[in-house]
Every structure is written in structure tokens, then in C-alpha cells.
């Protein structure tokens, strides 16, 4: 596999899988030091000093209305204005992250903006945590250690041949229709050789192929991961952008943003994501513009469900 020159982060597939697999809520610091609008810059200074942190969100009724960083503090200090309210010095328009976004979105955000920390909010837009690069480093080391331990254990008890256990990640590049479909073919072959019935096979193939082509046709590049055991096939597609503006629209049959060239390749009918959802037993999509998209599809290998299409 040759490296893509525009790739911002050239990490191994394992690490990429990790940053796609972890949610921000699992990585962030949940104990957040925040101040209210009527606090002073001096209050912020005390908080920063006592807790060795470099950014303090300003909240109003749990909603983030601003953030005071070390930079703002120094400016206030220079002007001898430490008695001023935080509202005067804070940065008002704050880029926040949602807690259930994959960690990869956060890494994109760190690349895109020059902030050192991002306040994290829940679905109700309430402050629930703060995310720094330090959190990310910690989480990665923790997770990599866990995976290495697992690999060591697996090494001691190797998986028997013919087993349904399978874990693989494929890297996909923009507009590489030449290789789009290879992963799906490989997975289909793997399952067929292990006697998975045709109808289930078909469902896995549809989900996997549509997601694979989506990455090639619509993303700037990403990965397709398969996690298979005796019970189910879990397919995860992750990309680095551009992100979907309206996921509900993207899930509507017939809606497509494909250009003429993609259409000339036989794609862009606006059936991709709806097809994936239709054949999946579990389906989830998460997307943010400028950060990326994550789709997860699970298909049960349970033979009792066979007669359902």
C-alpha cells in the first residue's frame, strides 16, 4: 500500500482503528473546571494555577458561552485588568466537540484549529468534559497496551483454522475505483468458505460493498474495518472528511451528491446508505463537517433470522 501524500496523520492501521473506535467521552477529562459569567480573570488565574490547566470554559446554565485561555489571561495581566469580569477577555465563539463523536473527529479538529483544548458537550449542549492532546496520548497508550496484551495472549492460544474469528482493516483512497470492492470480495469469500448461508452472505456483501464504495467515491480517504465472530459481522467505515452536512438527507433513497465522474462509474444512485441500513441488524452513523464520518453496520450470523430478508 503506498502512502497518500495528503494524509495528515500517518499512523499504523491499529492506531487508526483505535482513534476511530474510541469515543470522545471515553477519552476526555470529565472533571472540568469552569467559571460562570460573573467570575473575574483573577478567579481564572487561581483555577489555572491550582490545577495546572491552560484553558477554562465559561458557562451559563451548563452551556458553554466562552473560554478563557492562558493567552487571554496574559493579555489581561499585561493591562493590569485581573479584576475584570471574564466576559471581557474570553473568546466568545467556542468550537466544542460532541461527546459521542469518534476520537478521530477530535484529532481532525486539533489539526484544523489551533486550540489546545476543546470543551466537550452532550446532546443537550451542556458542558460534560474537556479534551486536550494529553487526554489523547493517555488514551492511546492505554488502549495500545491493552491490545498488545490481547495479541500476546492470542499468540499463546492461536485461533484454529476455519474459525469465524476475523479482524481486518482495509485502507481506502479517494477515487480508487480500481481497488474499491476488493475488501468486500475478500470478506465474502472468507464467510462463504466457512459455510455462511447465501442470504446472510448477500447482506454482508451489500453493506460492505456500499460502504467501501462510499469511502472511495465520497470521502477524502479512510478505512473499512471488519470484526467477525461466531455471532456477527461488524463493519465500520471511517473517513477523515469532508463529513456529511445532513445525515438524514444522506439516508434518503435517491439523494446523492455524486458528481458526473462518479456517476460514469455506475455509482451515485443515492442508494448506498439506505441499502446498508436495510440489510443491517444494527446501524449507526455519525458525521461532522470538516471532521469525518463514521458508519457502523452489524449483521447477525444467527441462522434463525435467515428467512427474513
Amino acid at each position, binding site marked *: 500500500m503506498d502512502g497518500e501524500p495528503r494524509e495528515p496523520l500517518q499512523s499504523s492501521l491499529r492506531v487508526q482503528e483505535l482513534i476511530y473506535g474510541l469515543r470522545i467521552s471515553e477519552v476526555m477529562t470529565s472533571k472540568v473546571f469552569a467559571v460562570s459569567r460573573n467570575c473575574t480573570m483573577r478567579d481564572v488565574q487561581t483555577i489555572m494555577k491550582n490545577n495546572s490547566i491552560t484553558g477554562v470554559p465559561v458557562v451559563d446554565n451548563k452551556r458553554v458561552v466562552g473560554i478563557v485561555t492562558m493567552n487571554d489571561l496574559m493579555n489581561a495581566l499585561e493591562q493590569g485588568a485581573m479584576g475584570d469580569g471574564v466576559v471581557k477577555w474570553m473568546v466568545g465563539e467556542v468550537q466544542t466537540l460532541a461527546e459521542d463523536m469518534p476520537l478521530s473527529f477530535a484529532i481532525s479538529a486539533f489539526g484544523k484549529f489551533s486550540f489546545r483544548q476543546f470543551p466537550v458537550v452532550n446532546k443537550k449542549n451542556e458542558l460534560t468534559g474537556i479534551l486536550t492532546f494529553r487526554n489523547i496520548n493517555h488514551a492511546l497508550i492505554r488502549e495500545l497496551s491493552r491490545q498488545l496484551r490481547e495479541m500476546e495472549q492470542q499468540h499463546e492460544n492461536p485461533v484454529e483454522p476455519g474459525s469465524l474469528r476475523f479482524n481486518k482493516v482495509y485502507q481506502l483512497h479517494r477515487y480508487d475505483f480500481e481497488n474499491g470492492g476488493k475488501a468486500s470480495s475478500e470478506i465474502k469469500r472468507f464467510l462463504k468458505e466457512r459455510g455462511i448461508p447465501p442470504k446472510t452472505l448477500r447482506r454482508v456483501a451489500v453493506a460492505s460493498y456500499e460502504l467501501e464504495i462510499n469511502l472511495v467515491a465520497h470521502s477524502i480517504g479512510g478505512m473499512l474495518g471488519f470484526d467477525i465472530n461466531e455471532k456477527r459481522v461488524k463493519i465500520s467505515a471511517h473517513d477523515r472528511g469532508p463529513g456529511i452536512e445532513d445525515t438524514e438527507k444522506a439516508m434518503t433513497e435517491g439523494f446523492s451528491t455524486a458528481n458526473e465522474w462518479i456517476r460514469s462509474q455506475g455509482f451515485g444512485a443515492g442508494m*448506498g446508505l439506505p441499502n446498508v441500513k436495510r440489510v443491517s441488524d444494527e446501524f449507526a452513523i455519525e458525521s461532522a463537517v470538516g471532521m469525518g464520518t463514521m458508519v457502523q453496520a452489524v449483521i447477525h450470523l444467527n441462522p434463525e433470522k435467515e428467512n427474513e430478508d
Partner: protein
Amino acid sequence: MKISEIESLEAFACVQAEYNDVEVRAGYTSDLLSDVMGNADEDSVLITIQAHKNTVAVSSLAGVVAIIICNSRSIPDEMLEAARNEGIAIFETAENQFNTSALIAQHLGGCPAR
């Protein structure tokens, strides 16, 4: 109808003949690959003008056993090669998709009951 029976019909010329001569049970007419992927039946013949390598990939995943390329569209070598690797038959015809579908339906014994 077996795949080889398509070969015997006058309108169709076989351009990729390395296939398993299995029973064709249904037909599907479409140029949109996602549509084929989602809706074509297993063991069907695909009637299309989409002469592209990706058509073979989709056919293989969907269980399409033969492809008929209509309107004498030129078929790239890489499509033929991909079909050879997958054991999928390819035919070409000067007929359009409608006529081809009608012809194939006749030989399948009419439109299969839905």
C-alpha cells in the same frame, strides 16, 4: 434456462465464455450499480449498458451469473478480464435494454411471478 442457451440466441454474442454453465433463474435490468447490488436476485442475468469493471465486482457480490451489455457498447478489456477471474459470462448485443429484457423474459418462461 442455462447460460449457454443465451449464447445460442441470435441477438447475443458471447465475449467472455469462461463461465460455469449454471441455471439462470431471473433477470435484472439496470444501469445503477447500487440498484443492482440491492435488488438483483441471486443467479440472475444482468441487462445493462454499464460496461465497466465495477459492474463485474457488483455482479459477483450480488450473485449475478451473466451480464448482457446492450446497444453495442464497447466493453473494456479489464472488464472481460475481471469477469474471467470471477467466472461470470459476458454477452454483447445491438439490442437495447427493453428488447433484451423482453427476449430474455421469453426464454425464462415469461416474467417470473412476483
